């Protein structure tokens, strides 16, 4: 079966799986940080599932991308918002899809511009392989084998339902 015809798990299933892995590890000083845009959706769904009132922040990595000089500024930059003190905080960084690791590299740089976190852990809904940076997730919903020319993206319908979209890279 080729990756595109392989039945994908639903985001809801993967979020449950992530929540199960995370529950025993939740300690004090923990904050969730989602990466725009898919990571924020995952964070919100996870927070609901975990049933804990954890501080939440959002990051847009556009100002920290390493391919700025090749592709320019993203046309829709959203404000980053970290409404808690980063100093000494244990941060769970959350994204939808982990691929090259460059987004996570950028996100960690941003976190340090807010202060010195005590620890950063990484949770992703999907790890699709293809890493170019020495980055390894701590919590993974699913490992998927995707061909290099394929893209997987998290989508959200108007009613808030999450879904996956796989398409061919142009």
């Amino acid at each position, binding site marked *: 079966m080729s990756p595109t015809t392989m039945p994908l798990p639903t985001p809801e299933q993967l979020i449950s799986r992530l929540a199960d892995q995370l529950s025993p590890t939740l300690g004090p000083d923990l904050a969730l940080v989602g990466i725009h845009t898919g990571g924020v959706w995952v964070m919100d769904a996870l927070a609901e599932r975990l049933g804990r009132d954890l501080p939440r922040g959002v990051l847009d990595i556009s*100002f920290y991308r390493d391919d700025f000089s090749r592709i*320019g*500024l993203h*046309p*829709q*930059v959203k404000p*980053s*918002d970290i409404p808690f003190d980063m100093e000494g905080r244990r941060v769970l960084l959350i994204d939808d899809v982990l691929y090259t690791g460059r987004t996570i590299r950028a996100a960690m740089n941003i976190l*340090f*511009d807010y202060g010195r976190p005590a620890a950063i852990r990484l949770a992703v809904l999907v790890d699709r392989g293809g890493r170019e940076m020495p980055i390894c997730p701590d919590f993974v919903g699913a490992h998927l084998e995707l061909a290099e020319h394929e893209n997987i993206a998290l989508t959200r319908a108007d009613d808030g339902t999450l879904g996956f979209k796989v398409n061919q890279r142009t």
Partner: protein
Amino acid sequence: MKNNLQLTEDGRLKHLLSLDGLPARILTQILDTAASFVAVGEREVKSVPLLRGKAVFNIFFENSTRTRTTFEIAAKRLSADVVNLNINASSQSKGETLLDTVANLSAMHADMFVVRHAAAGAAHLIARHVAPHISVVNAGDGRCAHPTQGLLDMFTIRHFKGGFHNLRVAIVGDVLHSRVARSQIHGLTTLGCPEVRVIAPKTLLPRDVGNLGVHVYHNMEQGLKDVDVVMMLRLQNERMQGARLPSAGEFYKHWGLTTEKLRYAKPDAIVMHPGPMNRGVEIDSEVADGPQAVILAQVTFGIAVRMAVMSILAGN
């Protein structure tokens, strides 16, 4: 003046020379990006690595401490290398032409020029002659345009009023000599503000004011009635030639913004001023320091807006 000089073939911003001719899509992109930079300015570390390795040259052929400083801060917060040049004090006094000066600076591997010049069209001229990888930002040319000031004013209005579509905005004072007023009018009109007024004595209005799509008033009471935003202009003393005005005191009496005159506007109207202010000439201290003034917010937002402009240009 050719405005498509500002855009790449696929419609992205290449130079920022004037708000005239820029589509709402681009103005909105700049304002949205600036909102993200406002959030960066509130962090402990106020810089981002976006323009690392790029060289930004602030070339000022006309003095302007504030504008030059905000451009310098903006470029530094983008991690660019910044060079400030006051040209009236250097080569031009030795007879070098504008384009020679620019060619020399280009040979020093500049990536961006921020240009202030007393002659209208100077930034356009430079934009037409620089190498393709260089972007030009107009930081004020003669009476023509001051697009980043216009943009930061739009940002300020959007911040405090939420948008433009239901607003009545009055621009007050020396419209004739003001490049700021022209940029404000273009910005407001493009972003969908339904009613832009200018309030000024006839002697301080440009002859083509009728073509700018604004309502003209010669009286503060009528002009300020029920407006949401009051944008004061600086009385351009140094540009004033001949007998356009009897005196600064006379100007204050009729056109200076006092608490009494501000009462004609809506109770929640905001008061803006591009600075530097002439207190007691175009604006009374009680208003300038009062609760409706957002003049210092304009300065703060000005840095974020200039960061947005530079980062968009450097990426295109």
